[in-house]
Structures are given as structure tokens and as C-alpha cells.
């Protein structure tokens, strides 16, 4: 093993960031997805995401019949196509129906809040030795 590769093994490189670093992404999520298990089947839906401070939620059109109440979901908010542009936030936790969404949103979508059990955020453009 060369000294170069030895040094490489000793260095730890990360793309993980604090979610707050991705404020613009969370403010206007370009892509938002919810994954969940229905019976024995994995499923995924496009959703509208909302992230304020440490609170995460998502809205689904009423045409989607799935009730997410108390269901474990993973909300993925992500952006970018090329390596150094890829960034995102993933929030895992049970979903709770939100009865009082913001007035402008209340009529068109069914909203849920996530009780976050695990939040991960990454930004490949911010890759660095951690």
C-alpha cells in the first residue's frame, strides 16, 4: 500500500450538513417525495413539502386515497442533477394529519406533519474533510 492510499484511508470525507444550511431548498422545495409501506408493498408519491424551522410536513392531493395518519413515512426533499449539485434532506417519522393548514393551502391538499425521528441532510457541493 502506498503512503498516498494510507493517508487517504485516514481522512474522512463527508457531504453531510445541517438541514439549516439548506434554507433555500427547504423554503422552496423543487422535488418532494414521500415513501411508505402499504401492506407488503413499498410505494412512493410526489408531494408538496413544507419545512419551517425543525417542523416538516407534506401535502397530497385528495385524489390520493392513502391515509398517512400514524404511518411511518420518509419525506425526501432534493435538488440537483449533477454530482456537485446534489443536495437534499430526508425526514423519517410517523405522519400526523394537520387539520388547520395555511388558508391558501387548506382546500386543495391534505396536509400531514411528520414527527421527525431521523433527519439527514447532504450537499455534495459542500464536500469536505469532516
Amino acid at each position, binding site marked *: 500500500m502506498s503512503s498516498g492510499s494510507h493517508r487517504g484511508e485516514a481522512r474522512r470525507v463527508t457531504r453531510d450538513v445541517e438541514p439549516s444550511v439548506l434554507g433555500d431548498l427547504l423554503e422552496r422545495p423543487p422535488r418532494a417525495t414521500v415513501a411508505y409501506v402499504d401492506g407488503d408493498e413499498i410505494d412512493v408519491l410526489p408531494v408538496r413539502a413544507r419545512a419551517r424551522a425543525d417542523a416538516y410536513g407534506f401535502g397530497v392531493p385528495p385524489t390520493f386515497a392513502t391515509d398517512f395518519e400514524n404511518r411511518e413515512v420518509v419525506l425526501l426533499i432534493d435538488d440537483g442533477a449533477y*454530482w456537485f449539485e446534489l443536495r437534499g434532506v430526508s425526514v423519517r417519522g410517523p405522519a400526523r394529519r394537520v387539520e388547520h393548514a395555511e388558508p391558501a393551502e387548506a382546500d386543495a391538499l391534505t396536509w400531514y406533519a411528520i414527527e421527525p425521528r431521523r433527519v439527514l441532510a447532504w450537499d455534495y457541493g459542500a464536500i469536505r474533510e469532516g
Partner: protein
Amino acid sequence: MPSPFDPEARAFLRQSMVAQVATRSANGRPFVTPLWFVTDGEALFIATGAESWTSRNVSRHPEMALLLSGERSGRTDRVLRLRGTATCHRGMPPWRVLLRIVRKYYLSPRALTVELRSIRKWPLRTLYHGQAKGGPGHLRVVPTMAVFLPRASASQARGR
């Protein structure tokens, strides 16, 4: 419902850059992550580590669901959801697939711009990939079902 490889679905796949790939863990919990992909015949090849969460999940539960956004289509009102069965493979994909990945994600004009702008970070990327447990891997997905879904857009949220 379109076939996974009817002309409309194929066109949408060509216009999509990142797939949101959902899998089920060994203990039945949901998982989703954004991954690169290319098509090859009637299969999709997805780039991921040999021992990534997605690969481990697929080893136990081969069924997966994917969302594709058609980023290059200019349309933002719908997404394509695919269901399929995946197999997990260690190492790099076949050469023809690898070349498609390189052309799509590294050699397009936009990709080259991003790459050159980040040239000082290339060594860090090499180290980052080297850290991956199990080394490189890939998934081969055979889609079995496709459906276009409306995106829950801002305009929809405003009730227009």
C-alpha cells in the same frame, strides 16, 4: 396506464435526470433516496454502492418504486412512477451502461460546467467514493408498471 416502455414513458425517462428510489428495509420500513440512472433496453441501471442502504434493501426485498420528474422536459405538472423488480450487483455496470452514465452525468455541456467549476473538489470526491463499504455496485431494475401522477404543485396548493 402506460407500459413502462411505451413511447411516452420512454421519452419521459430520457428527460429525467434523478430517480427517487424507494425500497423496503429488511424489517419492512420505507426508505427513499435520489439516485442516478440510465436505461438499457427494457431495464434501468441505477448507480449505488454495493452495500448502500438501497442495495441491502433490494437484496432482501427486490420490489421497488421510483419517481421520475422529467427535469429536462420543461413540464412540472406530472411525474412518472415506475414499479419494478431489482437485482443488486457488485462492481461497475457493463461498459455500454457505464458510457451512458458518463455521457449523461459528466459530459453534457451543463455537466462539464459543473465539473470544471468544482475541479478542486475532485480529490475529495475520489476519497468519498473510496470510503464506500463494499465498493461500487449497481442495480438492474426491470419495470413492470408505469403511471403518470400529477405533481402536488404550488399552483395546485393555491387551488387554481
